[in-house]
Structure formats: structure tokens, C-alpha cells
């Protein structure tokens, strides 16, 4: 009898670790509390806290004579966003982010579709490397590489000359707004590099969404009489939409916040990120910088709200 007891309940002389495990096993809420404490502290205080500190600044204003911050609640800084010069910056950035997002989605979809449906084994690995490798190399190196590609004496001009197609490029560059002296100092150049740099962030979520669509779903659509184009419109695209939206959140918000690409490639006209950078660093106008920083947050809020209303998350 004593023997069975001993085998049923193991020796009581246990170490601290074993006793701790027992305690946590008996009180799962304590374990949950301990596991959650560090991330909650980090997210709540350091991450969100600093964000709110920044946002708070946007409700202060700067005294333009002394350059001192006036710590009184005011909406004057926000009103300043709507002066023509500042509003131009916002409009330009949002337009660029929207164009970048749409172009990324159009280019990424077939790539993601191929990866999700057809790439197998080794090709799949090659594909992932191809998508991810650009992310491993330095962002600055990539942008400067693009500057060389797009420059007037760059490889693109050289290649087009070889093909006797440089008249095409010249004609494009002579267009208003999108054109310029060369691609590397044009809005088009900024756009190309934005699309290039954020492309993986669009491909991967779309691919993940497409992988969750069973083949039988597409077959069922065809079985019910839908041509491939109709299947895309009524089944595949709606089911991939959460992935497209997830990807577009990345491309859209990253473009809204970026200040390096437009500084190196494109015209001298400012984007939101550059405005934040200049007002905070050079001008010392932290309230206006903070107000500019709120703009992408508000835009993203509206964007997600609109996406939800359109049913982008219904298939989740």
C-alpha cells in the first residue's frame, strides 16, 4: 500500500523550480499575469506612452517670435496644417501613398498568386528568398542604387539609348507633374522606388490570404458556370481582400511616414515625413511636427473604417 502511494505522489523533497511550477499550474491566472506584465509595460508605457506624449504636443503651439513652446491647450497648430503650403504636403503624400498602394497591389497579386498556388518545394524557397532578400540589404544602399539606375547618366537611359527608345523617356519626362529633368529627380522616380521598397509587405499578406483559399472553392465557382474572370471577381478577390487590405496598410502607412526616399529621389517638394523631420529637428516646432504626425494616424483610421464598411474583413 505504501508503495503505491509513493509511486502516485512523487517525492515531496522538490526544488524551488518544481514548487514554482506547481504553484503556477494551480493558479493559471498568476501565470498569465506574469507572462503579460512585460509586454503590457512595454506596449502601454514606453510605446503608446511616448506616442501620446507626442500627440499631446500637437495641442500646444509655438510662439513664432521667441521660438518657445506655449503650453496651453489650443487647436491653432492643427489650423496651421490647413494653410496652403502645409495642406499641399498632406495632399501630395496621401496621393503618393494611394498610388503606391494601388500599384503594389496590382503587381503583387499575380506574384502572390503564383507563389501560393503553383510554387512547390525548391521553387517556393527560391521565391521566398527573392521576395525577402531585398529586405535584408540596407534600405539606403537600395535607394542610392535606384538613384543611379534612374539618373540622367544612369543604366536605364543607357539601355533605352541602346534600344533607340530614349525618345519615349524624353516624351514622358516632358509631361507636367510626373516628369522632370530625369527620372531620379521626378515624382515618378519617387513612386517607382516606393513601390519597389514596400513590395514585399504587399506580396506576403496576399500570399498568406490566397493560401487559405482551398482549390475546391475555385473549382466550385467554375463548376457553377463562372469563367475564370468571374471566379476572380466573385470568389478569389473577395477572399484575398483581407490580405490585400493588410498589405495596403503596410504600403500606405509606410509611404505616409517615410522621409528618406523623397529626400534622395524626387523633387524638392516635401512629404509628411520630411515635414515632421524638419519641424522637429531644424525649426524646433515640435507642436507642428506632432500635428503632422497625427495626420497619418487619422488617415489610417479612416482607411480601416472604410475598408471594414466595404466588407474587407468579412472573410476573416
Amino acid at each position, binding site marked *: 500500500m505504501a508503495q503505491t502511494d509513493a509511486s502516485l505522489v512523487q517525492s515531496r523533497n522538490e526544488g524551488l523550480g518544481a514548487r514554482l511550477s506547481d504553484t503556477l499550474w494551480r493558479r493559471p491566472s498568476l501565470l498569465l499575469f506574469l507572462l503579460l506584465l512585460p509586454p503590457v509595460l512595454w506596449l502601454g508605457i514606453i510605446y503608446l506612452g511616448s506616442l501620446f506624449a507626442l500627440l499631446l504636443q500637437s495641442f500646444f503651439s509655438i510662439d513664432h517670435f521667441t521660438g518657445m513652446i506655449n503650453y496651453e491647450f489650443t487647436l491653432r497648430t492643427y489650423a496651421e496644417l490647413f494653410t496652403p503650403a502645409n495642406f499641399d504636403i498632406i495632399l501630395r503624400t496621401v496621393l503618393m501613398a494611394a498610388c503606391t498602394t494601388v500599384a503594389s497591389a496590382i503587381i503583387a497579386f499575380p506574384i502572390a498568386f503564383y507563389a501560393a498556388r503553383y510554387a512547390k518545394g525548391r521553387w517556393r524557397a527560391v521565391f521566398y528568398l527573392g521576395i525577402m532578400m531585398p529586405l535584408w540589404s540596407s534600405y539606403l544602399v537600395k535607394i542610392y542604387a535606384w538613384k543611379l539606375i534612374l539618373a540622367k547618366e544612369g543604366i536605364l537611359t543607357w539601355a533605352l539609348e541602346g534600344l533607340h527608345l530614349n525618345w519615349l523617356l524624353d516624351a514622358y519626362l516632358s509631361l507636367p507633374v510626373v516628369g522632370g529633368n530625369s527620372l531620379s529627380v521626378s515624382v515618378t522616380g519617387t513612386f517607382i522606388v516606393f513601390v519597389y521598397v514596400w513590395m514585399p509587405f504587399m506580396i506576403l499578406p496576399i500570399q498568406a490570404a490566397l493560401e487559405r483559399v482551398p482549390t*475546391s*472553392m475555385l473549382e*466550385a465557382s467554375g463548376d457553377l*458556370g463562372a469563367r475564370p474572370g468571374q471566379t476572380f471577381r466573385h470568389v478569389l478577390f473577395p477572399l484575398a481582400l483581407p490580405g490585400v487590405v493588410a498589405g495596403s496598410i503596410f504600403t500606405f502607412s509606410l509611404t505616409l511616414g517615410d522621409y528618406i526616399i523623397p529626400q534622395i529621389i524626387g523633387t524638392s517638394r516635401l512629404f509628411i515625413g520630411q515635414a515632421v523631420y524638419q519641424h522637429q529637428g531644424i525649426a524646433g516646432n515640435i507642436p507642428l511636427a506632432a500635428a503632422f504626425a497625427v495626420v497619418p494616424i487619422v488617415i489610417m483610421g479612416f482607411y480601416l473604417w472604410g475598408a471594414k464598411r466595404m*466588407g474587407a474583413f468579412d472573410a476573416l
Partner: protein
Amino acid sequence: MSAVVFDHVSRHFGAVRAVDGVSLAIEEGEFFAMLGPSGSGKTTCLRLIAGFERPTGGDIRIFGEQVADLPPYKRHVNTVFQDYALFPHLNVRDNVAYGLMIAGQGKKQRHKAADEALEMVRLGGYGARKPSELSGGQRQRVALARALVNKPRVLLLDEPLGALDLKLREQMQEELKGLQRQLGITFVFVTHDQGEALSMADRVAVFNDGKIIQVGAPEDIYFRPDVPFVADFVGSSNVLPADLVARLTGQSRPAAIRPERLKLAETGPLSAQVIGLSFLGLTTRVSFQAEGTRLTALLPQDAPRPAKGDTVALTWAEDDLHLMRAGA
């Protein structure tokens, strides 16, 4: 006219011959079952009819029309998929109305037709729900309604009852059979469950290794298998090897005998040792070892039961020993 005709149809995937020279004719209005173990080619045959696969060789005709070059969306057949393949972003009514929407029917008209189809599968009033809010059996009915609402000339069913529990499965078997009689549509039903095939189908084709082994009415397949594979797979019959049959009857061919037809006797042609008994409720299953062959008998509960290790004599009516061809 035959609804579906296969003429020496093959479908190879690389070196694998999933379907290997199959010829068959499915008659109009027939409930036709394709039965076989997994990997036997039955599902590929179904997919060939639907148009999801293209044959490597041979001709397929649906109501006389060559379909090898017709994509699925141009064929008058509809499929109930094994995983139902309901569209998760559409509600039940729009799922059922999908084929009609593609065909260009107006919203009011197609929703009315969808509601009628849902009524037919006893899911009236479920139209506004999402597929994720339904149980497995209900999803199955929706898939059925979604296919039938298009009034196909042939309905293909790919193991549609596989995911349901036993009770629901039996109930659906009866409903499917009833629907088929009521609508008069040709049903082609793929299953690996012999009970399902035998209870529902007018005719059964038994598949193995990409070939059709035997086609016939359920009774034929069950009581008169052509080859040992059919005897074993369909009926769990006892298969007696040719040399044993040669000694018993003088004919050197394998033979099948149903477990419920084996009787215990004082004297008999075959003496066997009891190696196991299991209680099945209505009957008791007794396993024997007889001259190197394993045999099974189903004894009614009121019959005298032997004990494990006993040596007994086995006997049967002459008609019950069914001689077969040698081979697969």
C-alpha cells in the same frame, strides 16, 4: 442515351496512372456509385466528368457531346464537393444563387429560386446565415441545394457524406436517394464506403488501381463478385484460394463465401480451429483458421457458440460458394 460515357479513358500524373483505360456507360436517371479504396481512381474519374481534370487519353461524352475540350464552366454538370466548398464570404442564399447569378438571373428571381432549393433540402429560413454558422450536415444540404438549383443533367457527388457522423449519414443517404428519385437526375456518387454504395446506388462500379474491376447491381457485386478483390473489399467475404477450392469442388478457381452463410456442423467439408470470437449484438463474429486460410463466420445469437481453441467442422449450401475469376 447514356448520360456519361467513358471510352478507354486514362489520366496519368507523371508515372502514376490514376485512371488507366476506363470504359463505362452511366445511364440517364441512374444512381451510379463509384466505389473503391483511396487512390483507386474513382475521384479522378469524377473530376474528369466535371472537367477539373483533362484525360491523357480516351473519349468522354456527356449526353453524346465530346467534353474533353470543354472547361468546367461550359458543362451541364454540377458537383457537391467533399469539403462542400461553400463560399465563406457569401450568405447561404447567395451561395445557392451563385450559379444563377453567373447565368445572369436577376436578384429577385434567383433569390426566389435559391429559397425554393433551400426549402427542398429542408433548410428554409436559413438563407441569411453565413456558412460558418451551420453544422456539417446543414452545410452539406446547402452544397446540395447550390448544385441542384442549376438543374444539372448530371449531379456529381464526391464523398459528400464522409464528414458526417453515422446517424446523420444514414439519414442523408435516404434523403439523397429520395431526392434522386424525385428529380430524376443522373447521380454519380463517389465513396469508399461499401455500405453507402450498396444501399443507395442502382449500379456500382468497383475501382482498384485506376481500373474498373466490376460493374453491376448492388446484389451482384455483393453476392456474385467476379474476383477476390471485390469479394474482400465490398462484402468482406471469405476468399478461398484456388488450391483449396480445387480440393473441395474440383475446380481450380478462387471462391467467395459470405460470413453469414458459413455454418457450424458435426461433420463438414472443412475443419477449422476457432481463433477468436467477438460479440456484435445481433450476431457473433467467429474467426477460424482452416488449412492456412483465415475465415470469418457470423453466427446468430441463438446458434450454439464454440469456444476459442475448439476444432469444428464448417459447412455451407452449395449455392453459397461463389466461384470467381483469378486475378485482381
